[in-house]
């Protein structure tokens, strides 16, 4: 296990997953507390598997619409607040991925991690805000081009939209990688200085990110089928535990895909070599 975590990419994936789990927990916990109060001693608690029945949803929306609206606002506020926390730790995780043991900036302890994270926190916040613009643009372009190709097939439409989303996500990763590797938190500098590097290795970046995304999608799809099979079974404690394990594996798979892409993109931009696996610690 410890050997497993010595791999920078795997450790980063676990940390990303942990961060996502905390985010999920923080955002849904206010409503979960209330739902626990109203459902725990009720028969409705027996109808929450595999998903809450429409009658439960109806009863909730009709009788607790004020609570629902209040929760939506609360969740939005928590999401924004957690954005700052996530930006802080994401910086550290990026550096964990890209700095190898021989690098002077290598993160060797929790203290290093926190110090390193705080150095580029503000830059990651800037990229996070810039992401709204980038994702807005790629969704628009994806929809336009997807709409055109969608006339031939729905599958093609989905692929085109996904391709644009990968492009947007990759660009944002490259900006973060630049900040993490240079400690320069200027968004303007990141935008200008990465331009040449991207154009130089655009095709390799594109193909590499698509390859990782396709493999990750395939893995996620297989796990989804397993999850679907589990959810199609009657509820039991064992089924519940297996479901939780598969759900967390799903998240870990996505995070692993993200970490691999970060490492790959850094390899292409900074090192000029494709070392996506993050070292040979796995032996």
């Amino acid at each position, binding site marked *: 296990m410890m050997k497993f975590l010595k791999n920078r990419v795997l450790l980063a994936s676990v940390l*990303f*997953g942990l*961060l*996502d*789990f905390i*985010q*999920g*927990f923080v*955002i*849904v916990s206010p*409503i*979960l507390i209330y*739902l*626990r109060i*109203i*459902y*725990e*001693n*009720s*028969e*409705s*608690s*027996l109808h*929450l*598997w*595999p*998903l*809450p*029945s*429409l*009658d*439960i*949803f*109806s*009863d*909730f*929306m*009709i*009788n607790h619409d004020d609570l629902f609206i209040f929760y939506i606002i609360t969740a939005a506020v928590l999401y924004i607040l957690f954005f700052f926390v*996530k930006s802080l730790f*994401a910086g550290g995780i990026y550096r964990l991925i890209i700095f190898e043991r021989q690098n002077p900036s290598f993160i060797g302890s929790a203290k290093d991690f926190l110090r390193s994270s705080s150095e580029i926190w503000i830059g990651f916040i800037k990229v996070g805000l810039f992401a709204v613009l980038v994702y807005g643009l790629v969704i628009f372009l994806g929809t336009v081009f997807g709409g055109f190709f969608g006339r031939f097939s729905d599958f093609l439409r989905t692929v085109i939209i996904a391709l644009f989303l990968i492009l947007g996500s990759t660009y944002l990763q490259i900006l973060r990688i630049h900040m993490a590797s240079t400690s320069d938190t200027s968004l303007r500098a990141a935008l200008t200085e990465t331009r040449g590097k991207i154009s130089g290795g655009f095709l390799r970046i594109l193909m590499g990110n698509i390859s990782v995304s396709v493999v990750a999608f395939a893995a996620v799809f297989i796990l989804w089928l397993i999850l*679907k099979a589990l*959810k*199609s*079974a*009657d*509820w039991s*404690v064992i089924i*519940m535990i297996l*479901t*939780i394990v598969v*759900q*967390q594996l*799903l*998240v870990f798979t*996505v*995070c692993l895909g*993200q970490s691999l892409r970060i490492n790959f993109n850094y390899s292409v931009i900074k090192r000029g070599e494709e070392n996506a696996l993050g070292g040979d610690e796995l032996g």
Partner: protein
Amino acid sequence: MIGSILISISILAAVPDISPRVPAAYEIKAYLNDSTHTITGTMKVSFVNPTSRNLDTVAFHLYPNAFKDTSSVYCREDGRVRAAVERGNIAKVEISNIMIGGRKIEESGYGIDGTRLYINLDQSLLPESKIDVAMEFEILIPRMLGHFGYDSDGDYLIAHCLPILCGYQKDRLIDWEYHANSEFFSNFSFYDVTIELPEDFKAVSTGVLSKVSETDSTAVWNARADTVIDFAMVCGADMLEYESEFGGVTLKYLIKEKHRDFYPAIDSVVKNSLQFCGDYLYPYPYNTFSFADAGFTNAGLELPGLIVAGFFGSDKAFSANLLKKTIAHETAHQWFYATIATNEFEEPWLDEGFASIIEFKISREYGFDKFPLLFSNYLNSDRSMRRLFALAEEAKYPISLKSWDYPNRQSYIAAIYGRAWMILLALENAIGDSTFAEALKIFAGDYRFRHPDQEDFVKSLSNSSSYDLAEFVEMFIDGTSRVDYAVESMEFEKNETAGDSGGSEYIVYVDVVRKYDGILPQVIVLGLEDGTELYENWDGKDRYKRITFKANSVPLYASLDRKISYAIDENRNSNTIYRKGHVTRMISFEWDAIFIIEFLASILL
């Protein structure tokens, strides 16, 4: 399809025996021009005064005029139709050469008021006296508007467009304008219609339809219908004809080529629905039943002896089940509308409410009431969706309003299709399934081929049940009462005297509350750890009631009887309380909830 369609009249060999129960006999002759989408022709109708008073005028419906221009009541009430009319998709009916008893009526002798034609009579028409009216008409058919028109395939739905007599109900002339929410009312009549269609057209209609003759480009069809409240037809070239038989009834199907794979499912559900309604009410009274696919999407329309249903265009379980439910609903209308001909203008809940409750019974009986979504065991029904839709309106309007008294279509549908259905379910639960079924059968039998109203229904049901219907009607049919019962708490203590007397070991106190004004009888169930259940009836009238049980085992839960399960109860989550919470179930759900956000967050990293 270009060309003109000749519709010729066949003079009845013998005039049907009209009477106040079936007061009209129609003979129709017309031309339908497929290129101009018009029907022109003549109509002769023999009419007997079905009332107990003298009549000075006779009134006809001119439904197509609702789409003549944007000043009509219909267009003022329906923005989408108004926009279509503004874009030039109009319909209208023009009447000329009106004759009474062979004598031509001058223009001053009649008047058109919106969607109604009133002809003044020189002499009052005495009760049970007969009069012959003839007229020529020209109908401009629109692209599918309201309940008639032609669709994108060029197929026609000819319904609610012929100039037929306004009906009478309990001596009262029902001559309302055609409203956006309203459907239909007319008296039972005889129809003899001979129609000449293009040679490649197929058709189904009300009554018995047969091809009489053919020329190079056209074919003549004749339809005869006895004791029906309207005449309607669906025809088109892009259709496949199927024929089947059920219990002596000829079943005819007209299905678009692109939907041909649906035929076996349609035939099966039609037969199942006819079987169910026949057993539940009375056998289907006509000798033909037709189904047509007429260009609607996910919608249906009831017509006498003919139903129309729309398609999603997919054969997946979800859409197939929706189609089956539509067919079941429209078939149920062959009883509650076509033969128990209530007034859809003024009391739309009477036919739609009953059609809905029967639709749900049919879908449950034949297994298409649930839709698997996402996971194979995640079964939800449109019963849940209908309940949500109806409850979301918060019972703002009584179900007994006239169809146009609802402020918008959503309120109308929520009340007439949703709340009315929940109220009839509540009534069924309150008086018991078997009593309700028996009472409904008696009501249906008594009012078959008549025009009952709410009063008749209540009176009939009161005779069949000891339940206080007056209070029920006041709260739920004429009123806007809401329902929410809850089990507030459950406590128990050991019965110290039990050891000496050998009686119950535990005394259990269950507190139940009524939160809203609606009152419905309840059964309180106490579930015990040894697997037994104890029951206690409660009339549901008190705001709060403590019910004491003596039990031999520790209580597990207290519940309002799940077998009753009032759909109208607005919070069924509070209907049961367990002594021990389902902690692991909740943890399972909580992990699911966290996972959804966690997964989304991981993608958006």
